[in-house]
Structure formats: structure tokens, C-alpha cells
């Protein structure tokens, strides 16, 4: 039975309300609250699982995933700069967004798979954390070249100490230190409410996605096309990597989705500081206005269907 996922319906409700110009908004304190809960919950869950894994198994996977994070922006940049004729800074910034990952999209794919009873490696949040960073570094290098003025120390602070990364990593470490039994008393807030909180988050994301449409119109067709086609390509790479690493089918779907997703938390903040001449409207319009909705509504089921072909036995 193919239940319409209510979590996704909240996103649709947000989009509909936005298109009809309702005055519906999550107050920004509530949006922050909801985001914090999601980041901590994802981190905690990943950390608990991490405490069960021998590092020897994970280390090669982690390396491979970081490699993917370095590769994706290098693929995106020439497309944007040469085919799309975007200025160097803009192309580099958008490439960084698409090389990194969206935590919200991760939350949706995790909810999607668990609703369908598809198992996946629960330590995936580790990859979410790892994938935040490399694309930012590549993006900055693409925009500014390698030089001493890059103030890597200060940039490192911006990147690693942004609240998104701190909450995700902090949750991961707490989950890892406390273990499954230890986090159980706080599970009612972080785990039981997860999907409800995700629903509220997606409601607001729907409203935000619509608010990007004006900017998107100004950006032109090329960017809108890129925001759909490049994720499909990334999903192929991510899914292929998952398969090659011997992940379960669920894990492959997750890695494909992570690859296909575009950051809108850590990367925008870092790029704004490191590459201020890049127009932030372009990357946000593409990431939030096109890629996020595309992944939520079409991409995830698509990657799932494709993975089924790769895994004829079902896992």
C-alpha cells in the first residue's frame, strides 16, 4: 500500500500556502528550535550507531565519502562556469553548495526509508557531517585560488563552528559517548517527536522554497535545469559509491540522496564570508527553490526505485 507520506504533505502544504500568498510563517525562533531538534536528533542517532561500529570498518568508507565531497564541486564548477557562463565566484559558490549536503533532505530520506521498513546503516549521520566540509574548501579554492590571504584559520572557525555543524557533531559525540541505553531517557524528545518536528520543518521549507521562486525567475532557465540535472548525476555517483562500498540497499539510497542534495545551512554562511562577491540569491534559489523540492518529491522515490534494480535481492 502506497500511503501518501504526511511528512511530505506538510511540504506540499507549505508550497501551496506560499503560492497562494498566505501569511503563514514559522516564527524564526520556532524555525531555529525545530532545526536544532532535527540536527541534534540526527547526530544522536548516528552517534549511538557509531559506538557500535569498529572504526576499521568505517575508516575506508569515510575516506571514500570525503573523496566524493571533493569530486562533486569539481564536476559542477566547469558546467556552471563554462556551459552556464556564470562568473567565477558564482560558479564556485554554487559548486560548493552542490558538493555539500542538506540535513533536511537527509531527514526526509531517513523518514522515507523507515516508513517503508527499509533498513540502512544508521551511522549515516557521520557522512552527513563529513560531507559538509570538503566542498566548502574546494569552492573557496575555485573562487580565490590557493593563496596566503585565505585566512584558513578564520575560515575554519566559520565552517566548523557554525551552529549547524556544532549541533550535528555535538549530537554525534554525545550519542557515541552515551550509547543506546544512555540516550534512552532523552529519546521522547529527540526520537519520538522526530517525524512531527520534521513535518513542521518541511512546512516552513515549503514556504521558503516558494519565496525563492522570484529570485529563480531572474536566474534563468540554465540554473533551474542545473538544479535538477546535476543532482541526478550526483545521485548516480553517490549511489554507485554506496554500492561499491558494499552498503545495504537503504544505505545506497541514502548516499545517493546525500550526493544529490545541496546545502543551505553550513555552505551559504561560509561562502558569504569567504567569497562575498558571489551572489547568494543564485545558490539559494537553486538549492532551496528547485533541488530541495525536487529531491523531496521526486528524487528520493526515484533513487529508491533505481537502487532496487541494483539490489535484486532487496537488501
Amino acid at each position, binding site marked *: 500500500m502506497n500511503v501518501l507520506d504526511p511528512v511530505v504533505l506538510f511540504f506540499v502544504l507549505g508550497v501551496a500556502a506560499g503560492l497562494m500568498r498566505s501569511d503563514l510563517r514559522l516564527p524564526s525562533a520556532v524555525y531555529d528550535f525545530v532545526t536544532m531538534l532535527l540536527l541534534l536528533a540526527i547526530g544522536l542517532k548516528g552517534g549511538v550507531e557509531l559506538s557500535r561500529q569498529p572504526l576499521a570498518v568505517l575508516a575506508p568508507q569515510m575516506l571514500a565519502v570525503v573523496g566524493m565531497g571533493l569530486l562533486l564541486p569539481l564536476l559542477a564548477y566547469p558546467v556552471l562556469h563554462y556551459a552556464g557562463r556564470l562568473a567565477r565566484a558564482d560558479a564556485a559558490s554554487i559548486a560548493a553548495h552542490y558538493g555539500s549536503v542538506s540535513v533536511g533532505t537527509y531527514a526526509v530520506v531517513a523518514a522515507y526509508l523507515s516508513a517503508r521498513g527499509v533498513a540502512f546503516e544508521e551511522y549515516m549521520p557521520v557522512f552527513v557531517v563529513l560531507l559538509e566540509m570538503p566542498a566548502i574548501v574546494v569552492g573557496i579554492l575555485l573562487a580565490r585560488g590557493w593563496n596566503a590571504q585565505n585566512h584558513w584559520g578564520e575560515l575554519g572557525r566559520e565552517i566548523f563552528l557554525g551552529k549547524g555543524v556544532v549541533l550535528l557533531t555535538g549530537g554525534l559525540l554525545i550519542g557515541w559517548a552515551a550509547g543506546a541505553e544512555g540516550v534512552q531517557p532523552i529519546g521522547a524528545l529527540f526520537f519520538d517527536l522526530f517525524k512531527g518536528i520534521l513535518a513542521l520543518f518541511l512546512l516552513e521549507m515549503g514556504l*521558503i522554497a516558494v519565496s525563492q521562486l522570484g529570485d529563480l525567475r531572474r536566474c534563468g532557465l540554465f540554473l533551474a535545469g542545473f538544479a535538477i540535472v546535476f543532482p541526478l548525476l550526483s545521485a548516480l555517483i553517490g549511489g554507485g559509491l554506496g554500492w561499491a562500498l558494499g552498503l545495504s540497499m537503504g544505505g545506497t539510497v541514502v548516499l545517493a540522496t546525500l550526493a544529490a542534495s545541496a546545502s543551505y545551512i553550513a555552505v551559504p554562511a561560509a561562502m558569504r564570508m569567504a567569497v562575498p*562577491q558571489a551572489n547568494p540569491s543564485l545558490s539559494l534559489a537553486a538549492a532551496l527553490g528547485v533541488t530541495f523540492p525536487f529531491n523531496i518529491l521526486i528524487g528520493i522515490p526515484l533513487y529508491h526505485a533505481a537502487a532496487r534494480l541494483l539490489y535484486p535481492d532487496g537488501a
Partner: protein
Amino acid sequence: MQTETRKLLTVICEASLEARVIADVERLGARGYTITEARGKGGRGVRDAGWDRSANVRIEVVCDAPTASAIATHLRDHYYEHFAMILFVADVEVLRAEKFGPGAGRGLP
């Protein structure tokens, strides 16, 4: 009531600049500042504070004229080109003038 004239410099800019602008303001000699959350619209489009990336802050600095001038010039030179930002300066009368810098409140030099 014994008052003296000082400058009130108001900067409205994207929230992500807050830490930098504050650092600049203090380095250039201001002895305090006040921040309120804001949203708005300008040449760089609507900034409606719905979420982090799109919020503004409104920073007020009471200081003497040379300091106001120095801050304004610095902010213009460093941020106007790439960031959402406006600023304006007004004359205000203050009570404890020494709190806001030594300069007499002459018009902007």
C-alpha cells in the same frame, strides 16, 4: 537640562555581518552599540528574517562626529559592494556626553 550634541549612526545590514561590523565599530572608537533584529527590502531584494540567511540587524552607535565619520567610511569601503547594507547618521542630544567620546558635536567634518 544640560545636553551636548553627538551623532547617532544607524547601520542596517545582513545578520551574517553582525560580528564583523561590531568588531569594526569598537576598533574605530565607539564605546557602545545597540542591536535590534530587523527585516526589510532594498536593492538586494527582500530580507524577511524567516530564517537565518535572510535576517537583517539594525545597529545603532552614539558617538562623536569623527568616530561616526570613520565608521561610516570604513563600512562603505569594506561592505557596500558585496553585502546588503545601508547606513545613515543623525544629530542627537545626549546627557552624559563623556560616555560617547570626547569630540564636540560639530557637523560631520
